[in-house]
């Protein structure tokens, strides 16, 4: 039963990833990514990482995907949204992808790592301890990064307005 569910989730993940890779319309690709992200959250639960799984959904689905969809909706005007992604350079891309894939399988095959039987355990509290004891420096660095991000986004927004005020004149010149 467990394996069956795992296989289902794995199949959904792969399907989502493939849709992202091969779909021609950008909105379908984004949907495929959404599917893959949710399914990967499911995989995390199999790996007893429920906190990470919930974070994945909170941040990816609630944040990143919404932003991406926003971006898609804002930047593609009506008609070209379904056909603005001609697959270009498919042959070299396939080649490179194949090389990476084979490399990965080779590494997995020959790593010789010792694995232990994993067991489910509740993790929230322990992750908290790890974050605030052993990884306190990266944790704080991430906070700094996010502050920089917020300030940067604000600055960019201001810049936009400045640029835009000159934009109409430029356009007329071009015409």
């Amino acid at each position, binding site marked *: 039963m467990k394996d069956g569910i795992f296989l289902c989730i794995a199949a959904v993940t792969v399907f989502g990833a493939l849709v992202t890779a091969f779909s021609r319309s950008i909105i379908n690709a984004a949907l495929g990514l959404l599917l893959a992200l949710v399914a990967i959250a499911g995989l995390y639960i199999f790996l007893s990482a429920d906190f990470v799984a919930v974070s994945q959904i909170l941040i990816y689905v609630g944040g990143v995907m919404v932003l991406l969809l926003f971006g898609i909706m*804002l930047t593609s005007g009506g008609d070209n949204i379904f056909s603005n992604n001609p697959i270009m350079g498919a042959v070299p891309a396939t080649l490179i992808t194949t090389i990476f894939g084979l490399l990965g399988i080779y590494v997995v095959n020959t790593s010789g790592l010792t694995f232990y039987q994993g067991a489910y355990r509740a993790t929230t509290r322990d992750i908290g301890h790890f974050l605030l004891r052993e990884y306190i420096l990266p944790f704080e660095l991430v906070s700094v990064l996010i502050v920089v991000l917020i300030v940067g986004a604000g600055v960019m927004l201001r810049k936009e307005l400045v640029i*835009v*005020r000159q*934009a*109409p004149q430029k356009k007329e010149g071009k015409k």
Partner: protein
Amino acid sequence: MTSATREKELKPRVEITQISGTEIEVNMGPHHPSTHGVIRFILFIDGEIVVRAVPDVGYLHRSIEKIAESMPYSFFMPYTDRVDYVAAINCNLGYALAIEAMGGLEVPERATWLRMIGVELNRIMSHLVGVGALPLDLGAFTPFVHALREREHMMDLLEILTGTRMNNNYIRFGGVCQDVDDEFLKKLEKYLDHFVLFLEEYDRLIGTNKIFIERLKNVGIVSGEKALSYSFSGPNLRASGIGLDLRKVDPYCFYNDMKFDVPVGKGIKGTVGDSFDRYIVRIEEMAECEKILRQILSKIKEGPIQSKVPKKLVLPAGEAYHHTESARGELGYHIISDGKSASPYRIKIRTGSFASMTSLAEIFKGMMVADVIAYFASLDIVAPEVDR
């Protein structure tokens, strides 16, 4: 409020440059919940900001003015009800006064008093719809129902007075169509006692609501000069600080003898001429109507209600323009008669709503979509009056 903060608030929220450059053309109306009937704006919006707006009228055009040319003068009276169905007696009165002035018809005293009762009651009803629909368009449903409940009581009174609840067709040339007994007057007085309380309750409920004030203050500011240049009239003009009321300036009926104030917008929450002023002016005007009604009740006397009017009314050749203060501003009837036939050569109706529509294209510029609704609702435009 200090001048600095006021200046800050008065500045347009976003400068109208092309912010993202992607204008979306949206079609607000003719079937849209908040255009009150069939009025259409084409809005060019950029995000939430309206870059350009094209108001479009004519979806409710019924050629009332043209129809008038093909029928006797008196037959046209029911059509005037349909000019502004919310304040029907007001429209009756304007037409009747125009014809009476042109034909030199006498009006008995009691008929004039009854006309004034009908007109003032109707004005209150119309303003109730106006101030009720305003919160409705801002998202609050309950005040609208409360206002309509009161309007319902008034309709009952009008039913006694005129025989119908809407489209009353009450006024005849040289009089009114039916008389009332003293019981009606007592009922009316009793109702007015209740209405004062309701008005206060309503104003406390709505006019002190923080969200309501925030949504209306400094939105859609029409300064006095602007209002005149848009040819605003009625409450919308008075909200802009110009106390022009035809009942005072060019009195008709017995408004000369009435003691009432003309409320003007003072900008109590924001700037003179903003949407909140248009709301508060209507509220205050209802209180004035109530005062007028009480004075009428104290002065009304028994007497005939209809003077002698020829069966076939042929007006002398010439033209006349008569304006009255309707609930939505100046309501003028311009009548041209050729002196021979029993039907007018041409009738032109000037309405307040149509004048208010002229401001939309300019005021909408740079507003947010929600403000468009708030401004439009505060103007209290009735679609049939725009198109006739």
